[in-house]
């Protein structure tokens, strides 16, 4: 599904050169639920941005479904993001001036060939999946943190992406809300076979996923199956 080969990411200013990722090699097969852990600034979000085609590596190859994307133009990358990838962010990134339903419909705005009625139906289905069908006309500011994150998940789901990239989706939530969100993601992975890569600081959440990759100072330090799976030191 997603393959990263010898990925390196260096942020360069006039005076400072910061290595965010160094020699990262990863393969995430279809249907896997992977969590990425590591201290702040270790390159987790950078990794997610590169996987989500929001950022380019300084060196290395990113492959989606076996195809290297380095030669793709901006609109082709946008098309892949729209068709294949769904994003969930720690701070939800909802547009406060749009209703819950309109927020969920956003990804389909950039997909041609979907009628307004179809879009509405898909948005309602996605909201039903996350248990928010009663809040369609509400605005994000009228919702709790957990509800907002569920809207963000519904938005990520609406386009039926093969991959969901979640950047600390429970980071701003209390444990009960966090648990709810985690369950939604687990259900998505188990029932729909959606590939999920989740960045988290929460060891408990990470242990619920199939595979845990740890990063430190921009380098992948471990890559292991959790619980029932074999541990593999990188």
């Amino acid at each position, binding site marked *: 599904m997603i393959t990263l080969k010898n990925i390196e990411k260096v942020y360069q200013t006039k005076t400072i050169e910061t290595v965010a990722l160094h020699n990262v090699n990863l393969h995430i097969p279809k249907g896997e639920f992977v969590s990425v852990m590591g201290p702040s600034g270790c390159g987790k*979000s*950078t990794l997610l*941005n590169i996987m*989500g085609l*929001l*950022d380019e590596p300084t060196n290395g190859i990113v492959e989606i479904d076996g195809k290297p994307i380095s030669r793709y133009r*901006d*609109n082709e*990358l*946008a*098309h892949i*993001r*729209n*068709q294949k990838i769904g*994003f969930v*962010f720690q*701070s939800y*990134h909802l*547009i406060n*001036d*749009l209703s819950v339903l*309109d927020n969920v419909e*956003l*990804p389909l*705005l*950039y*997909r041609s060939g979907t009628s*307004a009625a179809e879009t509405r139906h898909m948005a309602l289905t996605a909201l039903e999946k996350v248990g928010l069908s009663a809040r369609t006309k509400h605005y994000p500011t009228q919702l709790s943190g957990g509800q907002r994150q569920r809207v963000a998940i519904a*938005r990520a789901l609406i*386009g039926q992406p093969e991959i969901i990239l979640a950047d600390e989706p429970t980071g701003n939530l209390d444990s009960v809300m966090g648990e709810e969100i985690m369950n939604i993601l687990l259900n998505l992975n188990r029932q729909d076979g959606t590939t999920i890569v989740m960045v988290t600081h929460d060891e408990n959440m990470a242990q619920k996923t199939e595979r845990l990759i740890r990063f430190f100072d921009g380098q992948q330090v471990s890559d292991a199956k959790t619980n029932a799976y074999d541990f593999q030191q990188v």
Partner: protein
Amino acid sequence: MIRHLFKLIWNRKKSNFLLISEIFFCFLVLFAVLSLVVYNVRNYSKPLGFEYDNVWLLTSRADIDSTELRIAVEQQLAQKIRSYGEVEGTALVSSNSPFAFSQMKVWAQVEGGPRILVENIDVEDTFAEVLQLNVSAGRWFTKQDDAARYESVVINRVLQQELFGAESAVGKLITRNDSSQVQIIGVVDHYRGSSEYSEESPVLFTRINQQKVAVFWGEMLIRVKPGTGIAFEERMVKDLSGIAKNWTLELTTVEKMRQTKEKLSLVPMIAMAVVCGFLIFNVALGLFGVLWYNISRRNGEIGLRRALGASANQVYRQFIGEVLVLATFGLVLGVAFAVQFPLLQVFEVESIVYFIALGIAVGLIYLLAIGCAFYPSRQAAAIHPALALHEE
């Protein structure tokens, strides 16, 4: 996407209120200035109805009281002027000659019809020849009018339409100033002697007949041959001064009079255009600043849209689209207000003038909006999605 943009702008109407108001007021000022410009340009492009090139105007002011004596000297002057090889013709005219500052209004009325205020110009028989008027129906004045039962008059087509509609006017009688009846003997296509920028008003030409009514006119149009220059002018004035001793003689070209009138029409138009230009420039700066600020405030949203599948080009188009929607909100209000002018016939200006001005103003506002949104939208499209999301 259009529905989405309208929804977005509508939901942000409070924060967009100032921008919409700015666009609304800018539209109104632009509409006012453009209405004036369109009115003037449309009038300018219409035929004047006469040729003023190579036509001079001699104005004479006598220092004697006797009208008979004045007329006699005036006739000597005309005779002398016509004797020059350079002169093609002369015609006495009342003081409201082409591009003059004076007016002479009378009431004209067909029996049972409305009273119409018309410009009355007294002219000699040679007037049509000197100004090369085109008589499209009937005829111009001739000697045969001396014996006519009613005083003969020639009118312009505008007056014909106001008095008789599509019917022919030739031979019909009209009442002038509620007293005398006059007979229409001809209709000229056009006569717009007031200014090139003014609308054609109803005109009534009456005939100067000094055998019947002895009046000293003091204004004489002179058509000279093409290429006749200042040397001849000086010679003629010198010769005429010898005939009309102690008289004040002024010789000017009708072209100079036209230029003076033109300045009077153009100055207010230019002044308004300059004021409007400054206003639009300020609005443009304001619009640009607000858009720039809005876009920099919406970095997170831009990053999100990019993450959800918007290409840089789609982000660019979205921001341009938003500004166009904003402009549309302002314009809907503006057009609703402006359209009252043609509907209520304000200032008795043709509706088409307002509609043209309205169309141009709408187009210019959209162009202005696109122009102001161009750079900030380009900047928005260039925002790196990962960075924008991170900043948020």
